[in-house]
């Protein structure tokens, strides 16, 4: 349900806005009821972020606030970094349906080095804004059905040391104050005495002021609630005690913590500020928290994001520029950039091909050279061998001649000897 497209009449938006008196009952005073009926059909959405050290009582406080058991397991102290754990519940009281999302920081304050502890929280909050922005900028969108996951309230749990804020607290809250509505609470307030508590609260508030941390101020513009809100603003930060266990006090069962020395009653306003917190957070200002998230924190995020992307409302000459013009310009830029990169890639590709080609040519030339060399070697060897063969042939032929000559001589000598023998016989 959006109240955002309505205007405060009386701001003269143009001419001719005259007040008129009615001659009878028209009936548009039923508009708030019409709106409320629609909202009942649609249901409400509320998202709370709880930041605090492990074991400080975040889950217990949530259980106590919403009178139910959200079944959160105890977290370990040995998480390597801060994680955010979100769970969504559907609650119903009479005919009002509430979709409640509780986000817990797991492992906050446990690490040795806490410098980056705030970052996952900031990232989570930004992610929800981003999600909404993307939906809002879609062409086909359905904002009225959108499950709003943006953080509406941030409960920051302060350790009941009794002295002052820790530097981790200051740093974290400073990073978050422009992104979310911060409501600081003092946890486990039953460990501080009344006088110490008073001094502690003053110290905390002055530290917040001197460090420029903007916490959520309960709104004062509606006369019906201005008085109670002003009083409550003076009680910040709320000192709370959480408990889901019931103890018998008098003849009633009340939510309380039982100690040997007494019973701390959660809903007793002189014991702790729990009732004040519930009043402020849920009964009086839930709608305002949601509206502040949308009109202030989300708008800031959106503005920064779009400006970061280069969108402006006025060009350098301070003439108003429509989003379309800027968009067209950006798109041109973007396409030119794409084109440039494409050309670059193409050039690089051509370059590489050339290089490879020349490499290959080089290699081919090498190979050719070696081939020629081998060929020459081969030819030389062959010539040498031919020479040897010729010599061998010559040798062979001369040897053959000599043998032939020797044989002839032998034959001649034989015939000469035969004649001699014949002569003797006679």
């Amino acid at each position, binding site marked *: 349900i959006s109240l955002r497209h309505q205007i405060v009449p009386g701001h003269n938006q143009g001419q001719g806005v005259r007040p*008129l008196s009615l001659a009878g009952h028209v009936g548009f005073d039923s508009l708030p009821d019409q709106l409320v009926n629609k909202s009942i059909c649609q249901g409400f959405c509320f998202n709370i972020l709880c930041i605090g050290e492990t074991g400080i009582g975040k889950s217990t406080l949530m259980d106590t606030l919403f009178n139910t058991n959200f079944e959160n397991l105890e977290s370990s102290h040995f998480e390597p970094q801060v994680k955010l754990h979100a769970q969504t519940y559907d609650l119903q009281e009479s005919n009002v349906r509430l979709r409640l999302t509780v986000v817990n920081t797991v492992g906050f304050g446990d690490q040795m080095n806490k410098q980056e502890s705030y970052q996952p929280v900031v990232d989570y909050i930004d992610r929800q804004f981003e999600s909404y922005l993307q939906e809002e900028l879609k062409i086909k969108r359905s904002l009225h059905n959108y499950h709003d996951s943006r953080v509406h309230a941030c409960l920051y749990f302060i350790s009941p040391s009794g002295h002052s804020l820790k530097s981790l607290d200051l740093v974290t809250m400073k990073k978050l104050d422009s992104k979310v509505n911060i409501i600081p609470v003092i946890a486990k307030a039953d460990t501080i005495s009344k006088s110490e508590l008073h001094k502690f609260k003053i110290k905390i508030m002055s530290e917040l002021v001197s460090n420029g941390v903007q916490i959520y101020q309960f709104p004062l513009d509606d006369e019906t609630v201005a008085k109670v809100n002003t009083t409550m603003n003076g009680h910040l930060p709320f000192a709370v005690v959480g408990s889901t266990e019931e103890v018998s006090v008098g003849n009633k069962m009340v939510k309380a913590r039982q100690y040997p020395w007494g019973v701390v009653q959660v809903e007793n306003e002189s014991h702790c500020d729990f009732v004040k917190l519930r009043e402020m957070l849920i009964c009086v200002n839930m709608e305002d928290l949601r509206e502040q998230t949308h009109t202030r924190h989300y708008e800031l995020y959106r503005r920064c994001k779009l400006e970061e992307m280069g969108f402006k409302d006025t060009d350098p000459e301070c003439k108003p520029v429509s989003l379309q013009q800027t968009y067209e310009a950006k798109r041109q830029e973007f396409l030119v950039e794409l084109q440039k990169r494409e050309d670059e890639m193409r050039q690089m590709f051509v370059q590489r091909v050339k290089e490879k080609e020349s490499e290959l040519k080089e290699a081919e030339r090498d190979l050719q050279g070696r081939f020629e060399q081998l060929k020459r070697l081969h030819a030389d060897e062959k010539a040498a061998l031919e020479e040897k063969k010729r010599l061998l042939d010559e040798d062979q032929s001369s040897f053959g001649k000599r043998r032939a000559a020797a044989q002839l001589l032998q034959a001649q000598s034989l015939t000469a000897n035969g004649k001699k023998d014949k002569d003797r016989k006679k």
Partner: protein
Amino acid sequence: MLVLALENHTVCTDLFGYVGIEAVLDQMRRKTMKVGLEFNIMVVGQSGLGKSTLVNTLFKSKVSRKSCTPNCEEKISKTVKLHSVSHVIEEKGMKMKLTVIDTPGFGDQINNENCWEPIVKHINEQYEKYLREELHINRKRRIPDSRVHCCIYFLPATGHRLRPIDVEFMKRVGKIVSIVPVIAKADTLTIEERQEFKERIRQDLAANGIRVYPQKEYDDDPEERILNDRIRESIPFAVVGTDKEHQVNGNKVLGRKTKWGIIEVENVAHCEFANLRDLLIRSHLQDLKDVTHNIHYETYRVRRLNESNMNFSELGLSARPLENGTADTSESESHL
């Protein structure tokens, strides 16, 4: 009172005791009263059908100036000129900025072709104005809403059927704005004539595919459907308007006095003015605004952004990709 958990499928126990969630209803009421409301209504019909009188009767004050007053010297204009007047009225702490957009000259010419064009142009111009404001980097907290929430179309009580000009107008304009047709000066029809006339008109509307408010497709839940079905069965409302009061049975009532009797405007046995008033103001005022914002305006926006090819996800809107991969889904959804 059951408590259920989504996504992680943990089932919780009941809410025991008071939390205070229902106080949010009061917070909402207070906020609405403080912020006030803007309502823009357009009246379309030939001159002499009692448009200004009806608007004055609806809002029980001199919101519109009647064009038949003796001091009025306006000639019938050659083209349809739109004339809007704003007033601030207050009732029991609820402030309303009411803007009535009159369309003198509609249907008055001999040749009435395209007489709806200035009207269509005006309606689209208001959407455009809103869209531009919505797309600004530095936006106003509350964007001024000049969009036409409701267009009352006046049908002359001929007793026959819809005329070509009626069909043409309602076909075209019914696509971009919520049209509520009414039978004007219905005191010229008897009850039976009126019923037959309405039946024929409903047939004609269905035959031409004209969707008038409340449109069947936008009924959210069965209860609403039943309620709206009843309304759909009795449109167009046969209305009579007047700002004069007469004495009837010792009471002062709004009525038209004739020789044959007094027609009581707010008497449902006489005419259906009270039904129209209840529909427009007492029960569906917020719904008219919602339908304009969530449906008609969104349709216009989709068309405009597609025309100018403004697809933000093309530019890689998210500098960091979202961890759970929604960046991808949103991109694929935006590409129509």
